């Protein structure tokens, strides 16, 4: 196949201009409006929040390996700047929805470690009463709509959240996250078409960690040279590509997309180039087969988003190594406490199997409903 012709300069997006690179200049996006306005507290908070995600997941990993929880555990470690950077530029009318690698987003929107850890343990004190598990965290009061297990299945849901905002005349948007493996699912393309067609204020954030489970991007996706987000051009949607190691860049480019959604009610596709240090899930014991230890080490040593941000803050004079260690120790203690909380919490009582299935059952008298709705001849537990 011949080499594709050089990409034309695009007017709608800055992604192909390559005027700035945070890969060679850590401060390339420091002068973006949204970053200039950042207070020292906000900068430190972003650092603390990223560290909290990492410590939470490291604690969860240990508990998982001790057999304290079931199912899958998809770790976000290595990708922290994406959730923290993007969510830190959202406002009170902006909504969040993501896929199954959802712990980072959950903590980023303000869910606490205890409810999240307890959910991993399947405990009654979990954010979903132990009914959802690792892949299904929710906090509608924080405008966080999950936590979705089926690859790409959340992409039309995010579209609907954004559609509802527009329908109600609210100046807001929805940030809908997906992995690089989800870009080949049909519903994502259906959603892009509708978003482009109807001017829906949605921002699709492709968190490209290079692997859709064990299959590298190269082996799974046909796409233009500029990357996966460039597929958006087929739907006349603006797009951009982001260095996911640099929080300034994540924030600057997300803020531009949020402004586009708020002011023009137009969608954006963002592709964040990032990396996960662990397997697809912890059950993915083969992750050293499809990539080398050197590749992982290279990212950890040169592109780790927490280290990069720490170096930026040290250089700016807002942080010291000692202070960073303190923050690290505090997050570690908080995560340890969440383990204790989860360990000591009760499992849900068996009658909870049959609650939260139907709104009409949980709220008698609010519907014109009659009849039998659950069909077990006999239940293996006492009913309330």
């Amino acid at each position, binding site marked *: 196949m011949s080499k594709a012709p050089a990409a034309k300069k695009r007017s709608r997006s800055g992604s192909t201009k390559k005027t700035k690179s945070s890969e060679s200049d850590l401060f390339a996006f420091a002068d973006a409006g949204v970053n200039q306005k950042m207070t020292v507290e906000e900068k430190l908070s972003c650092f603390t929040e990223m560290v909290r995600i990492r410590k939470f997941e490291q604690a969860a990993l240990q508990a998982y390996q001790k057999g304290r929880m079931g199912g899958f555990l998809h770790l976000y470690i290595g990708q922290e700047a994406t959730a923290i950077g993007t969510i830190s530029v959202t406002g009170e009318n902006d909504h969040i929805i993501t896929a199954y690698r959802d712990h980072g987003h959950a903590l980023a929107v303000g869910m606490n470690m205890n409810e999240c850890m307890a959910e991993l343990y399947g405990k009654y004190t979990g954010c979903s009463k132990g009914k959802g598990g690792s892949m299904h965290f929710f906090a509608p009061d924080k405008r966080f709509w999950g936590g979705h297990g089926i690859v790409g299945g959340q992409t*039309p*849901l995010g579209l609907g959240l954004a559609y509802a*905002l527009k329908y109600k005349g609210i100046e807001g948007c929805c940030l809908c996250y997906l992995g690089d493996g989800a870009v080949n699912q049909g519903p994502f393309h259906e959603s892009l078409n509708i978003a482009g067609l109807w001017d829906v204020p949605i921002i699709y954030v492709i968190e490209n960690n290079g692997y859709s489970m064990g299959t590298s991007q190269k082996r799974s996706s046909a796409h233009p040279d500029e990357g996966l987000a460039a597929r958006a051009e087929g739907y006349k949607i603006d797009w951009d590509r982001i260095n996911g190691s640099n929080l300034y860049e994540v924030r600057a480019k997300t803020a531009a997309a949020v402004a586009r959604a708020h002011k023009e009610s137009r969608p954006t596709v963002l592709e964040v180039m990032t990396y996960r240090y662990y397997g697809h899930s912890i059950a993915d014991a083969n992750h050293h087969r499809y990539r080398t230890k050197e590749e992982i080490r290279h990212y950890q040593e040169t592109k780790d988003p927490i280290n990069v941000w720490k170096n930026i803050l040290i250089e700016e004079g807002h942080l010291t190594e000692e202070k960073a260690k303190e923050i690290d120790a505090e997050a570690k203690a908080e995560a340890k406490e969440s383990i204790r909380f989860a360990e000591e919490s009760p499992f849900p009582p068996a009658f909870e199997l049959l609650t939260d299935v139907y709104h009409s059952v949980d709220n008698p008298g609010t519907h014109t409903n009659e*009849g*039998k709705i*659950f069909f077990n001849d006999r239940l293996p537990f006492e009913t309330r």
Partner: protein
Amino acid sequence: MAIITYRQAIKDALAEELERDENVFIMGEEVAEYNGAYKVTEGLWKRFGDKRVVDAPISEAGFIGLGIGASLLGLRPVIEMMFFSFVYVAWDQAVNNASSMRYMSGGLMNCPLVIRGPANGGTNVGATHSHTPENLIANFPGLKVVVPATPADAKGLMKSAIRDNDPVYVMESTVLYGNEGEVPDEEEFLVPIGKADVKREGSDLSIIAHGRSVLESLKAAEKLKKDYNIDVEVVDLRSIRPLDEETIIKSVKKTNRALLVEENKPFCGVDAQVSHLIQRRAFDYLDGPIHRLSAVDAPAIYSPPIEKIQLPDADVITREVLEMLQVKA
């Protein structure tokens, strides 16, 4: 009471609910400017405008998922399937997301969503367009499914479905759209979801049916009365999930015989569940085995005269009742 068609009854329900609640909107293929592939939404776009009646591209997964997402923020989308057979391309959205989200969030959210459209065979459109998936939908805890047979039930159930706070599937029938019937005039005419209706009282045998099979059963009942002096009771389920177990059991305890009729395929069809319920709760009242009539167990055939044979009609129902009562035809 006005006499209107099944189609008009649904249209009236949609119009009244659009008028009543600004969070209600209709979305689907050809529902707006084209006036609906089966004219159920005819005139609604002109009356309510672009925001409330929305033509969607042919993207069922996209716009069903959109409807679920929008319902989380309090909108009440009414999504039209041009044929219910098309829901299969959106299966993950329609059953997995719609049924699980409330549960997986521990009750933090709910999806007030209606998915409606025709689900029937008998129109010579071949196997891919002739599905009756009410049994499949009913298999998902979290979803509700209703199947109105008459104009009044179509209107009353549609209005209840739109006001419901759970996802409700309303399965209509292109064969019934032109049928006329009496419909109460009052605006607040609601048929409760989960309430069966005894469409004909009788003492000799209970026919339990839903959808078009109710009408075929009623025809058979008239013939059985006229020609054989047999009094058949016809119970219209109307709602599949929730299911009105009490009305079913009461009828069987009265007549001591049950014939279950549906256009579903037999294996794990709705009547497999009804049959289980009857033997479980009324075993000692039965004077003979429960009989079932379903669609002939093959994909829907195209050939028009043969497709007629594939679905249970009044003649087949009549013969089955005579056999059950050991009466010579």
